[in-house]
């Protein structure tokens, strides 16, 4: 877990150093956005494949999916509400 965190951090820092210090071609910076989108959609597609191939996930999805969804919605809902309050009180609201 810690190794993963350090690896991610190292990669982001490496990217950051390149972004900050090396003069990147205007063209590349412009393309960065669509490159990210393409990468992201592909990543999500593969994540979907992983879920779809896991029979255990698909089967339990059908039996306990509704209860699980109720829990997820409340979990996400209250995290957003609490973060909203923190944003309002300490960060001056909408960004």
């Amino acid at each position, binding site marked *: 877990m810690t190794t993963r965190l350090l690896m991610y951090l190292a990669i982001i820092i490496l990217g950051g150093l390149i972004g900050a210090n090396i003069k990147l071609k205007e063209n590349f910076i412009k393309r960065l956005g669509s490159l990210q989108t393409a990468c992201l959609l592909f990543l999500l597609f593969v994540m*979907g494949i992983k879920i779809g191939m896991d029979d255990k996930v698909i089967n339990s999805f059908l039996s306990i999916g509704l209860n*699980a969804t109720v829990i997820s919605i409340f979990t996400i809902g209250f995290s957003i509400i609490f973060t909203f309050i923190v944003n309002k009180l300490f960060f001056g609201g909408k960004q």
Partner: protein
Amino acid sequence: MTFRIIIAVILGIISGYFVLPKDILNYADYIIDLGLILLLFFVGIDIGLNKSVFSRIKAKGIKILLVPIAIIAGSILGSAIAGVILKLPFNEAGAIGAGLGWYSLSSILIASYSSELSALAFISNVIRELIAIMIIPIIANKIGFIEAIAPAGATAMDTSLPIISKSTDSEITLIAFITGAICTFAVPILVPFILNL
């Protein structure tokens, strides 16, 4: 963006379930890791191009820690309330919420307690990540950038980070990474703790 995200995930699930041969699964983790590394590298470049980010983060200071605290508190309270509706005891429902979207670890942590609850924690946290992926762009647009970190929980450090980066700005992306890292460390402590209450 949300629409394209939903399509990508659904296409993946459908082709994984119906079309593709099972042995692809051996490569899926490598591909995900590789894709993630590439994306995080791009996220880093984005942050590096915005040099003012660090001074702005510094100005916010220790207050940034309130973001993961709010997400953790909201997640546990939210799942506990869902537990009241679903007639689950507080410790069981709360432990699922304390998984913060990290489905593999939270289900492992709960497995010795009950395999039924472990499955529920797994699916619920998978769904949390799926919902997060889909609504982060909408939350960023309609409610606020800081709030867009909330659905991601522990995944704000990895799988959700590229989406947060695309939907918000470099400053929030950095706060999201810090938040995700703190949530990631909190999961293995909080899940057993709440389960034993």
